[in-house]
């Protein structure tokens, strides 16, 4: 017997209809199972966010700020939230600032102000309360959450400057700095990241720049997000555990505020990378070595 029903059942018009309905349901579930038209993600959810364009610089000015890639890369990865510069606004006395735009995907934004003397008040167009209200020289910071284009209302006795930053969690994909691609610059060492305590991916390149200083670049980098991470240089060739890493003194290169993307960092002048054999991502908050890359000297 060959029916799309219990074997003992006799075919009837109703059963034929149910058979057809069952076939349609089966075919539809097959399409969902293949995630056709992203149906499965829409029905069952996705643990990854939709792809978003990565930031191309630490300022929000875009590709003009640095020699940057033509288009920001699309990515589903998220970084530890970091502060990206939006605008530096200047004026004298009471004035409306130049317009600026906080990105739609920004988590929040903040303003800080400096002025020549007296007091300063900064208001956003949507807020009743001033973002900043104080004397010049104070370190007040005002926060907002509404994205989009806006201009601030500033009241001050003299010249003033307002810095606007937005907090984002997209990766930062910077182009190499001009110094890294200068003719006399050489690649001193390279390495691929491996896991110690947390997930990781990517590689590191150490440059000896034409002026004798050093710079470090992370490419296609990701590490489990956390605040206050640090890039450190270790004399160990391949530290495998946090305990092993702590056994020898290391030196900080730079704070790692962005935990995903491709980024450039200046090596402090007092640090000579050739004295070290690995790069370690360190979390001082919980005393954990997240990931490391053994440095291989360039030929």
């Amino acid at each position, binding site marked *: 017997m060959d029916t799309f029903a219990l074997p003992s059942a006799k075919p009837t018009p109703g059963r034929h209809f149910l058979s057809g309905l069952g076939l349609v349901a*089966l075919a539809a579930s097959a399409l969902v199972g293949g995630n056709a038209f992203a149906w499965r993600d829409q029905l069952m959810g996705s643990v990854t966010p939709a792809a978003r364009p990565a930031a191309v610089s630490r300022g929000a000015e875009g590709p003009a700020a640095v020699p940057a890639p033509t288009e920001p890369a699309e990515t589903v990865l998220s970084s530890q939230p970091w502060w990206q510069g939006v605008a530096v606004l200047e004026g004298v006395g009471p004035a409306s600032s130049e317009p600026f735009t906080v990105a739609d995907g920004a988590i929040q934004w903040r303003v800080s102000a400096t002025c020549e003397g007296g007091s300063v008040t900064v208001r956003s167009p949507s807020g009743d309360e001033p973002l900043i209200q104080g004397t010049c020289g104070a370190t007040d910071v005002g926060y907002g959450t509404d994205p989009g284009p806006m201009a601030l209302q500033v009241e001050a006795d003299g010249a003033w400057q307002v810095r606007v930053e937005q907090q984002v969690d997209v990766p930062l994909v910077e182009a190499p700095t001009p110094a890294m691609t200068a003719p006399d610059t050489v690649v001193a060492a390279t390495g691929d990241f*491996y896991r110690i305590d947390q997930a990781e991916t990517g590689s590191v390149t150490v440059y000896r720049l034409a002026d004798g200083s050093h710079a470090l670049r992370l490419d296609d980098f990701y590490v489990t997000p956390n605040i206050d991470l640090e890039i450190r240089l270790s004399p160990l060739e391949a530290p495998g555990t946090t305990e092993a890493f702590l056994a020898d003194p290391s030196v900080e290169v730079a704070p790692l505020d962005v935990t995903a993307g491709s980024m450039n960092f200046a090596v402090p002048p007092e640090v000579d990378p050739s004295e070290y054999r690995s790069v370690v991502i360190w979390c001082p908050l919980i005393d954990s070595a997240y990931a490391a890359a053994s440095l291989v000297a360039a030929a």
Partner: protein
Amino acid sequence: MAAPAVLAPSPRGQTEIVLRGQRIPVVLPSRSDPRLRLSAVILTLHLLGQTVLGFKVSIAQILVSIGVGALLELAVTYRRQHQLVWPASGILTGSGVAFILRASGTDNGDWWSLNGIGFFVVAVVLSLLSKYLIRPGGRHLFNPSNAGLVWALLVIGPSQVFPQYLWWGPNDLGVAAAYAVILLGGIWILPKVRMAPMALSFLATFGLLIGILAASGQEFVAIWHDGPVAGLSYWTTIAASPEVLVFVFFMISDPQTAPRHPLGRVIYGATTAAVAAALISFQPTEFGIKLAILSSLIVVCALVPVIEHVSRGLARRGPEPGDGEPGVVAAAPLVPPGLARRVTTALGRPAVAAAVIVAVAAPVNTAVLAGNDQVMLIERGLTGEANAQ
């Protein structure tokens, strides 16, 4: 008020239950039923999984899966036969589903967690639907729990569910005990159902093909491993996985969905291994590899009528005793006459159409997983606290 049920022997000596004056025969499990042995092995592995292997499945999820499988089979059997038959297959189906399916967010030790219980119920229901509704030729075509698991894993997806890991832990006593249970269980069950040659055929073919993939530089990522699994680890993790042994010894060895001819069973084992290796060959994640293995059985179950026919044809063509040359073709040709017409006619039947949809969609959707960014991110642990595994 309903009359109380009474369990009593019938005049013919069969156990019956008397309900509202109606005698309902009760068929209890037979000690010679290999499904009892299989249940004992799987439940022992469940016990090890809960206690020493760290399986991310709760006792409640296991019990609900078994209960749903048992109740559904009990109801269907009663409707068809007006008997209360011990639901050995339903219990096995529920147990098998809970053995492999994992709901994101369940940890070992969450013993009474009902997290994602709907997914387990769906998988068991799908398993039994495949058994009772897709019956070309009056016999279910697909291994029920395998079909339900593949469909559930694909349709529900990697954000909510995942299969049991191929790697069960470091080589300690717990894993050794699991290997012992699996191997002794295989020795206990496979000869009884005449599936030992099939299992050896699968293991030999699979081991060889996975070895070739490993030697050719194939690798995969898994949430439990730092960096890609490659080289010898690729081979040992896949080919010698206790999960694969369970698949071979206790899933594809189901005589109800395997060929009946001895040669057909050998071909069936080797073909399943070859299809599995082919599907694995482009999977970069453990999730994809596990689904490739499970999907291979769906493909080959759909081919069982063909394997059966070919194996019987080959057996008839075998060499005469004492003759070094192949024997004269005596009977049925390998390709039966009028095959195209019969296939066209069969495709018009709902059961056959359903079987074709399942047999095509399972491997195709499994192959599509190879390009799924979400699975890769999950397996690499790059989705942070929201990681599904």
